[in-house]
C-alpha cells in the first residue's frame, strides 16, 4: 500500500514538470506582445519592460528562474500589474473562492448523482426513473455556461428568488454551484445507474438481503459501495470539467475567482500569471487524480497490491 502511494507521489513531479515545460514553450511562442496597447510604446520602453520581466534573458534561464519562483512559491511580478506578485497578490485571494465553488460543485455532483443513479437503478422503469433519465440527458448536453445563463435569467432576474451576481453569501452560491455541478452530476447519475444495475443482481446482494440487512443499508453499504468504483474513476475528469467550467461560470456570475485571472492573463499575454494559473490548476488536478487512485485502493481490496 505504501509502495503504491510512494510510486504515485513520485510520478507527481515529472508530470508537473512536463506540464510546465509545455506551457512555458507555448506561452513564449504565442503571437502577440504582452506590452502592446492601443497607444504604441517606444522601443526603449519595451526593452526596459522586457528587462524588468526577465524576457531579455536566454530561454533556459527564464525557464529555470520561473520554475524556481513557482516551485518555492515566491512568485514573480505580473506583467499587467507589475506592482503585484502573481502568487501572493493575485492568486492567493482568489483561489479560496474558486476552490470553495469547485469543491461545493463536486460534492453536490457526487452526492446528487449517486442518489439519483441509485434510486433509478433500484426503482427501474418507474416514472421517476424515466424523468431522471431525461434530466440527466439534458444535464450532459447543456454546457455549464448555457445552464448558468438560463438559471441566472430565471431565478436572478425574472423570479428574483436568488441573487444574480457576486460571491460572499450562501444564497449567492446556489446558482453558480448548480451550473457547475449539473454536467458531472448527470454523468455520475448515469454511471451509477448502469453500475448499480450490474451489481444489484449479484449474489452478495442477495446474501445480504437474505441475512435480513435492511434495504437501505443493502443499497448503500453493499451495492453502491461496489458500484461506486466507476464513479470514483470519473471524479478526476469531473474535477477537470469543473475547473474548466468555472472560467465561464465565474464570468457569468461575476465571481472574483481564479478563472478570471486565467482567461484575462491569456488575453493579456501576462506570462507569469498564465504560468502560475496553469501550474495551480495542474497541481490541483494531479493531486485530485492521486486521491482518486488512493480512493480506489481504499475501496477495492483487489487493487491494494499493485
Amino acid at each position: 500500500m505504501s509502495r503504491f502511494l510512494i510510486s504515485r507521489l513520485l510520478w507527481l513531479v515529472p508530470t508537473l514538470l512536463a506540464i510546465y515545460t509545455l506551457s512555458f514553450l507555448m506561452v513564449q511562442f504565442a503571437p502577440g506582445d504582452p506590452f502592446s496597447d492601443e497607444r504604441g510604446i517606444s522601443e526603449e520602453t519595451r526593452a526596459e519592460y522586457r528587462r524588468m520581466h526577465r524576457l531579455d534573458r536566454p530561454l533556459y534561464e527564464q525557464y529555470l528562474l520561473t520554475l524556481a519562483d513557482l516551485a518555492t512559491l515566491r512568485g514573480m511580478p505580473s506583467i499587467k500589474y507589475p506592482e503585484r506578485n502573481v502568487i501572493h497578490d493575485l492568486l492567493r485571494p482568489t483561489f479560496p473562492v474558486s476552490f470553495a465553488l469547485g469543491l461545493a460543485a463536486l460534492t453536490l455532483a457526487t452526492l446528487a448523482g449517486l442518489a439519483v443513479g441509485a434510486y433509478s437503478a433500484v426503482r427501474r422503469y418507474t416514472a421517476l426513473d424515466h424523468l431522471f433519465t431525461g434530466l440527466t440527458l439534458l444535464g450532459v448536453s447543456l454546457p455549464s455556461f448555457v445552464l448558468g445563463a438560463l438559471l441566472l435569467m430565471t431565478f436572478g432576474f425574472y423570479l428574483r428568488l436568488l441573487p444574480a451576481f457576486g460571491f460572499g453569501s450562501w444564497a449567492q452560491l446556489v446558482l453558480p454551484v448548480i451550473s457547475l455541478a449539473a454536467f458531472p452530476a448527470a454523468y455520475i447519475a448515469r454511471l451509477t445507474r448502469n453500475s448499480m444495475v450490474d451489481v444489484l443482481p449479484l449474489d452478495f446482494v442477495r446474501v445480504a438481503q437474505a441475512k435480513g440487512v435492511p434495504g437501505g443499508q443493502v443499497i448503500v453499504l453493499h451495492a453502491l459501495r461496489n458500484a461506486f468504483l466507476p464513479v470514483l474513476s470519473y471524479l478526476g475528469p469531473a474535477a477537470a470539467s469543473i475547473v474548466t467550467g468555472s472560467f465561464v461560470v465565474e464570468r457569468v456570475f461575476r465571481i472574483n475567482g481564479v478563472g478570471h485571472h486565467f482567461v484575462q492573463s491569456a488575453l493579456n499575454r501576462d506570462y507569469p500569471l498564465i504560468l502560475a494559473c496553469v501550474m495551480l490548476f495542474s497541481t490541483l488536478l494531479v493531486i485530485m487524480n492521486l486521491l482518486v487512485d488512493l480512493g480506489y485502493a481504499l475501496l477495492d481490496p483487489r487493487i491494494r497490491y499493485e
Partner: protein
Amino acid sequence: MTSFRPWFGLISILGGLLALNFAVLWSVLGDGSSAAPGESHLRFSQGPEIATLDPARIKALGDGRIAAALFEGLTVTDPATLSPRPGAAGSWDISDDGLTYTFHLRPEACWSDGDPLTAHDFIYSWKRVLDARTAAEYKGMLYPIKGAESYAKASEAGEAGETGVTAPDRLPQLGLEALDDKTLRVTLERPTAYFLSLAAFSTYLPVKREVVERAEAGEGGAGSWIVAGRLIGNGAYLLKEWTYKSRIRLVRNPRYWNAGNVRIETVDVLQMTTDLALVGYEKGELDLVMALPALASEALVRQMRAGRRSDVHLADNLATYFYRLNCRRGPLKDPRVRRALSLALDKRAIIEKVGRLNQTEATTFVPPNLPGYEAPRGVHRNIDEARRLLAEAGYPQGRGLPKLLLLYNTDEGHRNIAELAMQSWKKELGVEIELANLEWKVFLEEVQKGQYDIARAGWYGDYVDPNTFLDIFMTDGGNNDTGWSNERYDALIRQAADAVDPAARNKLLRRAEALLLEESPIIPIYHYVNVSLVRPTVKGFKTNLRNEILFSDLWLDESGGTEP
C-alpha cells in the same frame, strides 16, 4: 487481511468530502467586511480594473482619478471647465516668451506625514518619470520641458550598459530648478500653450522620495509603497485600505492644505464589473457610477430623454472612433480612393443603429467645441463627390478595385459598425470589403506591422487641446501606424508647437487638421460619449470631456429627493 468494515470506504470518502466542503465554505463566506457608512460616505464605481496608482506609471483614466485624490500636482484640472486651476502651487509667473514658468508652492502644502512639500519633490518625481528604469509609458508628457527628451534618451542608453545605472549628475541638464524650497522654475523646450494643463496630469504628480527609495531598496520591490499604510501623498485623501480587486477606501487627509473644504469624509472605490455596478446602484449600494454596460446605457439614456430619470448624465468625450487607412499599400496609396471612402461612409446609420447613444458624428478628427479652436470644414457625406473621385482614380463604380481588408478587434459593436461600413461602401461605391476580426493583442500586432487595409481605432485625448489628436500623424509618429507622411503637415504641427500667440497657433493647427482630413489617412466616424449614474444626493458633479472627477469637489446632501 481486512475484516469487512462497511463504514470504511465509500461512506468515509463521501463524508470526508462533505465535511471538507463545509469547512472551506465556512471560512470563505461570511467574510464581507462592510464598514458602516459614516456621515458623508461616497460609494463610487468605475469598472473592475485598477492597474496602478503610481503616478509615473498611470495610463488609464480611472487610475488617474484615484491618483488625483491621493496626490496633487502644481495645477489641478477643474472638472467644470477643464481648465487648470492652482493646486499645490498657489500662483505662478510666466515669462513673456512663454518659455519660463515659475511656480510658487503654497507654504502650507505638505505631505500626509507632515513633511513640507518642496520644489525638490517635483524635480525628483519628474526625473523619476524620465528615468528609463521606471519604464513610464507616458514620459513623453514631460518632453515639453527643456532637456527632458534628451535626459530620457540618455537614461535609456545608459541602461544598455552592464552597470545599468547612470548617475543623475552625468545626464544632460534639465530645465528644472528649485530656486528655494517653495519655488520651482521650469524652462520649456518651446512655448507650450497647454503646459499648465499638462502640469495637472497624472505623470506630473509628485511622489515622496524617501518612501519610493525605501521601497525600491527593500524586499517588496519598487511597487511596494503603493499600499495602504505606506503610501504618502499630498492630496485631499489618504489611502486607508486597498483590498485588491475589491475595494479602495479613501479617507480625508486632515493635513491637506484645503482639508477644510473637503466635505466628503470617506470615498469607497468599489471594483466590480459594469453590470454588477448597475445592479449595485439600483439596490442603493452605490452613489456614483461612471462605467456602465453598453446595452443598459442605451436604455438609461432613453429613459433620461423621456424625462423618466434625472440621475443619468450623458457627456461628450474627448475621444474619436475612427478607421485607419493603410497608405502604404494597394489602391489606398491614392488619396482620392481614401477620400472617396471617407465621403461615402454613412456615419449617421452607424450612430443610429450601433452607437445608439446619440454620439456626435465626426466630421473632423478633433472633437468639436474645444475652447479657442476653430475646427476646419470637415468631411460631410457626399456620394457624388465620392464616386467622382473613385472614377478619377481609375476605379469607376469600384471596377478594378481589389477587395480591401477591414480589421477590427473582436467585439460585437465593432463588428456591427464594420458590417454597416461594408454595406455602405458596397452600395454607394461598388467597393468590396473583406471583414476580419482578431483577438486584441494579435490585432495590435497586425496593425503595427501594417498588415491591413482598413483598421478600427479609437483615440482619447490626454489634454484639452487639438495637439493631442493631431501630433499622432506626424511622419513616423509612434501611434501613426498608417504610413502616412506629409512634410507640410509635420511643418505645421512643429510651427504650432513653437507659436506663442494662441490665435496664430490655432490657425496653424486648423490648417494641419484640414490637410489631414483632405488626405484622409483616417476616417473619423463618431465621437465617444460617456454615461454616468449619479444619485441626486451627490452634489457638485460636473460632466466634462475627459470624465474627470475630483472627490474633493463633491459633497452629499441627504435632504431633498431620494428617488434613485
